[in-house]
């Protein structure tokens, strides 16, 4: 169960629902208050009163005009039938209606009152200006009545409240869905981290978690991956050192036993030769030479085993790695004159905290192997650089490279009877690197051949830039 997600969603619900309900209650209350101040009733009364007043005024204006006409105290405009085609619409309409007389509002905005009177074949039109613009008044009355009617036909309180509720709940629901999405997004990496930690605690040191984010959780996941990686490497190093210790014990015992046996064999063989008659001497001399040669070969291996099993004290000092590289390359260059050496060294001469003799031994071994693998006209590249508080040296060769099987067993000690080497060099080199607090590993070669990386702790107070 994803508890973090559930808690986030619950937190959102608690954080929003209660304020939302309170806000809605306040808003609907205010809305109710606001609508109670609505002036619909006043507008209804006012508009009715306005109409009555306007009508009364209009009637008075009509009577006044009619009285003026009866007193013949007002001029008129005559529209004769002969000119009927040019009559205004109001006059034509009046003529067609058959009415004896008619009042009509005219002028700009209804600011004039016309009195149309039928006189035989003419229409006489008397006019007087009005103090009010009757058409404007009529329009205002119409708009006011429209508002009143709208208010009467609508339950505005219900409309506003329902709209408010609908919109607020819609917005809240969208936020809620968004919150679920966010909660999933936030909790998923934490859940992965928790699961990863559980797997790591169960001993699965190869557990890694994918993360693309750069936030706190992303950094925590990267720290987890780094820690898991270091734990895995340390376990592998520990296993390696334990194996090496076992092999050293075995080598020491074997060397001791062989040494004990080889000395009497050599003495006995020499004694046999001394006691031989002169007639058989040439053959015996040759036989003894062969036996002694083999004994010497075995003694060399016994010495190698002795050296492998010996564990001199580790003396950590400040080692100028660039200087050691240059020295080793200068030493090996005459021995492999046809090999091209290239160095690419870190700026600032970074210093490592290591056993100088062991570092020299490691580099000699790795450089020697690289030169042999590269062969005549081959190439060896040595580069040093700083990486995460460590000084690193990489040695690349242009040789045939390493098979997958060779990569897997490269650092295991073996006994070979080839002319050069005993098969212990790389295992001793890696053991020495580990004893110095670093490591020797195989990396991808840049010259299509093999490549080794020596990583040593950087001396405190020194630094430089990554090459």
């Amino acid at each position, binding site marked *: 169960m994803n508890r973090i997600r559930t808690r986030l969603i619950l937190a959102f619900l608690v954080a929003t629902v209660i304020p939302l309900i309170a806000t809605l209650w306040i808003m609907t209350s205010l809305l109710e208050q606001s609508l109670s101040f609505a002036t619909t009733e006043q507008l209804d009364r006012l508009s009715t009163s306005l109409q009555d007043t306007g009508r009364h005024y209009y009637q008075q204006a009509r009577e006044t005009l009619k009285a003026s006409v009866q007193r013949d105290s007002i001029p008129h405009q005559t529209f004769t039938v002969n000119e009927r085609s040019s009559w205004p619409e109001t006059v034509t309409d009046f*003529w067609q209606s058959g*009415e004896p007389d008619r009042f009509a509002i005219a002028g700009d905005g209804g600011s004039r009152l016309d009195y149309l009177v039928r006189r035989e074949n003419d229409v006489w039109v008397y006019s007087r200006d009005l103090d009010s613009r009757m058409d404007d008044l009529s329009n205002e009355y119409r708009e006011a*009545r429209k508002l009143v009617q709208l208010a009467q036909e609508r339950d505005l309180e219900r*409309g506003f409240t329902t*709209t408010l509720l609908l919109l607020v709940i819609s917005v809240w629901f969208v936020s809620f869905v968004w919150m679920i999405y966010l909660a999933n997004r936030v909790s998923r990496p934490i859940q992965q981290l928790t699961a990863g930690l559980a797997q790591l605690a169960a001993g699965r040191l190869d557990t890694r978690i994918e993360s693309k984010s750069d936030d706190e959780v992303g950094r925590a996941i990267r720290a987890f991956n780094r820690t898991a990686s270091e734990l895995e490497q340390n376990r592998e190093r520990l296993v390696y050192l334990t194996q090496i210790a076992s092999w050293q014990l075995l080598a020491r015992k074997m060397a001791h036993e062989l040494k004990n046996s080889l000395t009497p064999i050599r003495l006995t063989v020499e004694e046999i030769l001394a006691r031989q008659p002169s007639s058989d001497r040439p053959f015996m001399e040759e036989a003894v030479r062969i036996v002694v040669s083999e004994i010497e070969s075995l003694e060399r291996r016994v010495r190698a085993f002795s050296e492998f099993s010996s564990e001199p004290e580790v003396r950590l000092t400040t080692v100028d790695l660039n200087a050691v590289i240059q020295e080793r390359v200068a030493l090996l260059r005459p021995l492999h004159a046809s090999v091209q050496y290239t160095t690419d060294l870190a700026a600032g001469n970074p210093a490592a905290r290591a056993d100088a003799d062991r570092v020299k031994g490691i580099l000699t071994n790795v450089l020697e192997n690289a030169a042999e693998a590269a062969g005549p006209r081959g190439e060896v590249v040595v580069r040093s650089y700083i990486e995460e508080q460590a000084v690193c040296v990489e040695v690349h060769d242009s040789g045939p490279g390493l098979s997958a099987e060779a990569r897997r067993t490269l650092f295991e000690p073996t006994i070979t009877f080839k002319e050069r080497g005993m098969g212990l060099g790389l295992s001793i080199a890696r053991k020495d690197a580990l004893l110095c607090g670093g490591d020797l590993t195989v990396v991808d070669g840049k010259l299509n051949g093999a490549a080794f990386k020596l990583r040593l702790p950087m001396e405190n107070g020194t630094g430089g830039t990554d090459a």
Partner: protein
Amino acid sequence: MLTASLLVLGQSLGVRVDGERLRIDITKARLLVGEPLERLHDGASVTYIVQVSALTARSGSVLTRTTYRYVISYDIFEERFQVSRIQPAPRVLSHLSMAAAEAAMVDSLEIPASSIPPDRPFWIRWEYQVEDPSQSADGGMSLGTLVDVFSRKASKGPVGGASESGPFRLRELPRVAPARGASNP
């Protein structure tokens, strides 16, 4: 449901043949009543749709139909009505009393006689309906539209009425006398 149907039941309906057309004469029709009349008195315009149909029988299928559309307005100071016919042939009559305005909406109603069989009986149905201005919502979604939708009270239904008369036979109907010339201009 047409809420004002009872109001038109008291009218009388006459049919005459005028050439290729049937002239429908309706008298005593009360159209300006109730809510539409209130709206007119409030200064608003009201649209009436009047339909005349010839039916094969009472509530039968339609043989022919003509639709008239009127916009009625009211002068609040003169207290007179204006009837503007929009469809089919535009015409404006103003300064009318209520009875004259009602008569203006139902006189000169015509339907083509060509689609009516001369010897078969037929019925005349006339009906009217008042357009509800609250239903003419402007399209689109806005806060105002939402408030309007949620604040509407239950509709009383469209205002209107209908009446049917018959049976008539085309050949038995009186003919309109040809005009002898113009009288009053």
